[in-house]
C-alpha cells in the first residue's frame, strides 16, 4: 500500500509524519535535532529514503544533515558554505552598501535525477550545489555576482534564496526567488543568471520596470507545464506562461493578496492554492479565520476553503516553505502554521484536519509520496 511522509521543519527541531494512502492516522517521529531551527527538509525524488535537512542555530551556525533511511537516522554532512571569490556588497536597509555574510540555508532542493546532487539556497542570497551527497558545497557564483547584486536588499526576514525550482524537462534551467531581489533564471545549469521580473509591480518601487527589488515570497510550477509559473509576491499573486519572461497579476477576488506560500495541485496544473494573510503589518488571517483559497482557473477566480479550519480567533501565519502537495490519486494538500499545527486535506482542499497540532512554529512542510 502506498503512503505519504510529511517532513516538517520547525523553530525547535524536525518532525516526520507518516500515514498510509487514506491519510487518516498519522505517526509522528521527532523532534529530530531538538532545539535547532530546521528551515527545510526535502527528500530526493530519485531515492525517497535520501532526505536532506538544513539545521541551524544563532549560536552554532549551519549544519546539513542527511538521512539514507527515510528520516529514521541522520548523519551530519558538509557545513562549509564559502562564497566564491570577492564577497561583494548589496544594499542595506538604510541604502548603504553592506558585505555579503553567510547566515543560514533556507532551502534544499535535491536533483530530479541524482540523489547525490542537491542545491542549497542561502541567506545572504546565494545558491550552492553539492554533487557528493552534501559533503562538499560549491557556490554557483554567477547568481550573487550578477550586475544587479549591489541593488538587492534584505526584506525584514533577511535576504535569502528561498525557492529553487528545477525544470523537469530541461535540467539546465533553474528558477530561484530571492527576497527582496526577485526571480532569476539560469539556462546553463547555474553558470549565468538573468532577472525575470518583467510585469511585476510593487508599490514601494517607483520604477514600474525595475529589474530587481521585488519581494517575491514564493514561486511554484507544475512539472508537466514548466513554462507556467505561479507567484505569491509580498502583495499580489502573479503568473507567467513564458518561463518567467513576463508576469501578470491574477489576484482576482482574493480578500487580500498578501501571503507567503503558493502551490499547484498534483494532477491539475491550473489548480493553485494560497493562504491569504491580512497584510504586511498584520501577519495573520483576516478576522481570525484561517482560509486556504483555491483557484481552478490558474488564478483570478478564487474560492475559500474553510471546512475543518478554525474560523474564529486564529492568528497564526503560514510561512513561504510551509505548504506542499502529495501525488496520490486524490491529491493531498498540507500546510503548517506558526502556531505549530499541520493541516492536511486528502481531497484537494475540500476538507481539512490537523494531523498534528502542538509543534513549535512550523517553518517548512514537504511531502513525499511513497510507493
Amino acid at each position, binding site marked *: 500500500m502506498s503512503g505519504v511522509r510529511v517532513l516538517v521543519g520547525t523553530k525547535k527541531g524536525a518532525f516526520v509524519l507518516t500515514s498510509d494512502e487514506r491519510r487518516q492516522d498519522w505517526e509522528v517521529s521527532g523532534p529530530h535535532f531538538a*532545539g*535547532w531551527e530546521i528551515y527545510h527538509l526535502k527528500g530526493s525524488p530519485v531515492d525517497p529514503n535520501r532526505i536532506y535537512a538544513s539545521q541551524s*542555530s*544563532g*549560536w*552554532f*551556525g*549551519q*549544519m546539513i544533515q542527511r538521512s539514507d533511511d527515510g528520516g529514521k537516522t541522520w548523519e*551530519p554532512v558538509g*557545513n*562549509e558554505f*564559502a562564497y566564491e571569490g570577492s564577497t561583494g556588497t548589496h544594499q542595506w536597509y538604510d541604502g548603504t552598501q553592506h558585505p555579503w555574510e553567510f547566515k543560514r540555508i533556507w532551502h534544499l532542493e535535491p536533483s530530479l535525477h541524482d540523489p547525490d546532487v542537491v542545491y542549497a539556497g542561502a541567506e545572504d542570497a546565494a545558491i550552492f550545489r553539492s554533487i557528493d551527497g552534501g559533503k562538499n558545497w560549491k557556490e554557483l557564483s554567477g547568481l550573487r555576482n550578477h550586475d544587479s547584486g549591489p541593488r538587492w536588499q534584505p526584506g525584514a526576514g533577511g535576504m535569502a534564496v528561498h525557492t529553487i525550482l528545477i525544470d523537469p524537462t530541461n535540467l539546465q534551467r533553474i528558477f530561484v526567488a530571492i527576497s527582496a531581489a526577485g526571480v532569476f533564471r539560469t539556462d546553463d545549469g547555474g553558470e549565468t543568471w538573468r532577472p525575470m521580473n518583467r510585469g511585476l509591480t510593487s508599490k514601494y518601487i517607483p520604477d514600474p520596470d525595475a529589474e530587481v527589488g521585488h519581494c517575491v515570497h514564493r514561486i511554484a510550477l507544475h512539472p508537466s507545464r514548466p513554462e507556467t509559473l505561479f507567484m505569491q509576491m509580498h502583495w499580489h499573486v502573479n503568473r507567467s506562461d513564458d518561463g518567467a519572461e513576463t508576469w501578470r497579476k491574477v489576484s482576482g477576488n482574493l480578500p487580500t493578496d498578501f501571503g507567503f506560500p503558493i502551490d499547484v495541485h498534483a494532477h491539475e496544473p491550473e489548480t493553485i492554492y494560497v493562504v491569504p494573510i491580512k497584510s504586511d503589518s498584520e501577519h495573520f488571517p483576516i478576522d481570525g479565520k484561517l482560509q486556504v483559497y483555491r483557484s481552478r482557473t490558474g488564478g483570478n477566480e478564487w474560492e475559500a476553503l474553510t471546512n475543518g479550519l478554525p474560523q474564529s480567533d486564529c492568528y497564526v501565519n503560514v510561512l513561504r516553505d510551509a505548504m506542499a502537495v502529495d501525488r496520490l490519486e486524490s491529491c493531498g494538500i498540507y500546510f503548517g502554521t506558526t502556531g505549530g499545527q499541520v493541516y492536511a486535506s486528502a481531497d484537494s482542499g475540500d476538507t481539512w484536519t490537523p494531523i498534528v497540532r502542538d509543534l513549535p512554529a512550523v517553518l517548512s512542510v514537504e511531502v513525499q509520496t511513497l510507493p
Partner: protein
Amino acid sequence: MIRVELPAHLRKLAKVDGEVELEVAEPVTLGTVLDALEARYPVLRGTIRDHGTLRRRAFLRYFACEQDLSLEAPDTPLPEAVVRGEEPFMVIGAIAGG
C-alpha cells in the same frame, strides 16, 4: 590531558557525554586546543569557529579558571591549571531567554 567542556548541543553533535579529554602538544593555547578538538570531532568544525577565518562565533565565549578568554589571541597560552588538567577549558553559549 586537557579537559574541555562543551554546550549541550555540541556534545550531542559530537556524540559525547560530559567533558571531552584531549591530548594537546605544547604549547597549549586557545588555538591548539580548538584545533585538537576539531581534529578529534570534525563535526564541530564551523560550529565554534567560522570555517576559513577561524573567528569565534559571536554567541559563544571561552572561559577557564574564572577568566574570560574570548577576546584573547589564538596563541594565548591557557592557564597552568588547564594544562595540568585540574580545570576545564569551557566553551559557553550566550544565555537565551527573557
